[in-house]
């Protein structure tokens, strides 16, 4: 090889046929007269040959199959082809698979029971479910609106939403199609004052027919029985899983919203039944966690699950001593599945937003996310997790450690509403439209109650929050920007602009530094249990 390289890049460009006609003439003349130039050109050819000769290794053998899997997963998320995704076995996937299997089995049984108990359609309206009415608390005149899901043995799907004064109707509900039978009620105005919505959770078989889990989601202004919080918690069985006979079970599809009427304590409420696919929701959550590089802490997850299961078993035993009929519910049917992840807010918000988007939002109600737990409970108070899950007992410290990302700030209410509009727009939750924070009295009442969150929660570790506060307080007083409240849901909202952290904490207006603090999150799934009480026949 020549020890003196060419003095310009013309020869290299000549080799690549990338020279101008003028350069070409000059270079050809040079090559005729200069042996060094010819040698350089020859060496360029050798370099090229070497590079191409040595590039012979094949792609990894698993590449094609991984591409196929990825495409299948993406297709599944897009809901274009409902296919089964072949996955590498893992503990988490095994557990989710068990949960899905349990959900499907239980749902099939529930559907069977429901189909066996479909009454005469002509009497459907008059024969409202009295079992629900008997258990429905009285309306709370002062109160917050509680969006409560009467899932089949799924107390996690009970949500308190933000305060809404009675009398303020849910506009989405009012715009819902109303069957002609409403004209015969004679009391339809009451539906404006008391909204009652339900969601029907179903999973679809491959043939496209409904076969599985149903749950009801109610959004009703009602009074929580403060005297018996534990009963409202984990061990509480659903009040009813009965579906009105006028709902066409054989033709409804995933995503359908079916309104009907129900007599609740002498008042007529409009109820929306929404059909969702639990199976897809669970699978998608796992997939999106992985896609957003959110690791799952298997050890912590197992630890939490053990605690949950022990607690559940204990409660079942206690309940069984009181009423043997409750033992119809098998432990396996009530199995809880914890997904413990540690991620930044950005990661989690992205995953959740994708989740909302990919499932077209309707599927969200198929997931039962746990009530909020504070950061310390994830690290030190694992033993108390079941209690934390069933009834939030926020200490002042815990309350301070809770940063509410959306709804407590009236300033950001509108913005947050946009950020979470994907959920609110389709879920049958009543969203608060008032900008006023809950009164102290109502807050005090709520603190006595078990609270549940169906919206997503995110917890900021206390130390990170302190940092956040320190950085924010420079710009504005804390009270103006943060209103720590244990009763408010934490929403992993991701603004469309992508400035997730800024907007989520309301810092964008102050130009405060973005903090990408790790967030510990525990999502709990609970398999749908078989209802212990068969719906009353008509």
């Amino acid at each position: 090889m020549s020890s003196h390289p060419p003095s310009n890049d013309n020869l290299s460009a000549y080799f690549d046929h990338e020279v101008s006609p003028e350069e070409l003439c000059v270079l050809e003349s040079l090559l005729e007269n200069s042996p060094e130039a010819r040698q350089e050109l020859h060496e360029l050819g050798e370099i090229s040959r070497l590079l191409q000769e040595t590039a012979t290794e094949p792609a990894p053998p698993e590449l094609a199959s991984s591409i196929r899997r990825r495409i299948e997963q993406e297709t599944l998320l897009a809901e274009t082809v409902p296919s089964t995704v072949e996955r590498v076995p893992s503990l988490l996937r095994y557990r989710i698979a068990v949960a899905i299997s349990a959900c499907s089995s239980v749902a099939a049984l529930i559907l069977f029971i429901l189909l066996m108990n479909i009454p005469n359609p002509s009497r459907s309206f008059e024969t409202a479910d009295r079992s629900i009415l008997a258990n429905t608390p009285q309306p709370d005149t002062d109160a917050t609106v509680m969006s409560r899901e009467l899932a089949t043995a799924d107390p996690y799907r009970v949500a308190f939403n933000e305060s809404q004064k009675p009398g303020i109707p849910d506009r989405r509900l009012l715009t819902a199609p109303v069957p002609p039978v409403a004209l015969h009620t004679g009391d339809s105005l009451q539906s404006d004052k008391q909204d009652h919505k339900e969601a029907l959770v179903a999973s679809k078989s491959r043939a496209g027919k409904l076969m599985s889990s149903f749950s009801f989601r109610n959004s009703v202004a009602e009074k929580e029985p403060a005297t018996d919080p534990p009963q409202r918690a984990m061990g509480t069985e659903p009040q009813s899983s009965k579906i009105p006979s006028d709902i066409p079970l054989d033709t409804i599809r995933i995503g359908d919203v079916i309104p009907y009427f129900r007599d609740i304590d002498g008042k007529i409420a409009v109820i929306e039944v929404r059909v969702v696919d639990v199976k897809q929701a669970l699978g998608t959550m796992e997939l999106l966690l992985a896609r957003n590089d959110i690791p799952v802490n298997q050890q912590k997850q197992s630890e939490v699950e053990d605690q949950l299961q022990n607690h559940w078993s204990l409660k079942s035993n206690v309940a069984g001593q009181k009423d043997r009929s409750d033992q119809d519910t098998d432990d396996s049917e009530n199995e809880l599945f914890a997904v413990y992840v540690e991620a930044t807010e950005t990661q989690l918000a992205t995953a959740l937003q994708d989740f909302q988007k990919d499932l077209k939002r309707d599927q969200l109600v198929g997931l039962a996310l746990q009530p909020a737990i504070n950061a310390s409970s994830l690290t030190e108070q694992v033993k108390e997790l079941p209690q934390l899950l069933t009834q939030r007992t926020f200490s002042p410290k815990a309350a301070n450690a809770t940063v509410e990302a959306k709804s407590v700030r009236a300033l950001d209410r509108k913005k947050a509403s946009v950020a979470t509009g994907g959920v609110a727009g389709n879920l049958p939750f009543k969203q608060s439209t008032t900008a006023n924070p809950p009164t102290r009295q109502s807050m005090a009442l709520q603190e006595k109650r078990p609270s549940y969150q169906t919206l997503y929660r995110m917890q900021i570790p206390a130390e990170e929050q302190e940092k956040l506060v320190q950085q924010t307080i420079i710009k504005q007083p804390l009270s103006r920007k943060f209103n720590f409240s244990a009763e408010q849901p934490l929403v992993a909202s991701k603004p469309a602009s992508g400035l997730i952290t800024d907007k989520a904490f309301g810092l964008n207006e102050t130009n405060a530094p973005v903090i990408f603090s790790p967030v510990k999150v525990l999502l709990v799934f609970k398999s749908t249990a078989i209802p212990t009480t068969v719906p009353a026949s008509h």
Partner: protein
Amino acid sequence: MTNNDQYLIQECLAGRTEAFDQLVLKYQDRLYRTLVRVLGSSDDARDAAQEGFTQAFFKLNSFRGTAAFYSWLFRISFNAAISQKRKTKRTSTTLDTQENPAGNWLVDTHPENHPPDVAERSERKKMVHQALNELQEEYRIPLILRELEGMSYGEIAEITAIPLGTVRSRIFRGRNELKQKLNTLFQNDTTSRVSRSDHESSISESK
């Protein structure tokens, strides 16, 4: 674009997605080889190839067919690779010799591809790999795009978003540096070729 590619794309667009598997099998080796040299990591190359094929699948209806399918696929994959590289913010820009000290990704696992002089070729591969490993990324990428993908300077300028003149000079510098690094190999090779050539010429002269 070959007729076969066009046929497979049409089949895929018609809903027979298994046709895309044929496109994957057809182009995965070529794409992977280039990406592994561009990214300097076999793992990153695999991920980028997967991302590229996946994106191509879902963008297939936007493929107009004016260019070759592979060119279109490569652009998608290259962009995915660069995005991935920026996202992960890897500090290392060299090939993964530490991850694969034996240069495993260079090893041809298909025995049918092994010529008799496999040891010599393997050694040469390692030397070239080492030389590429030491080459700066800004020189390596244009050079690889030129040598392995046969891209014109204009295409390289477009895909890498650098000026045409810079592409030209970087390819020149890349070759120059690579030549220096492969000096020993080159000298031996040249010597053997020269001696072989001398021998052949002497034979012809004697004839």
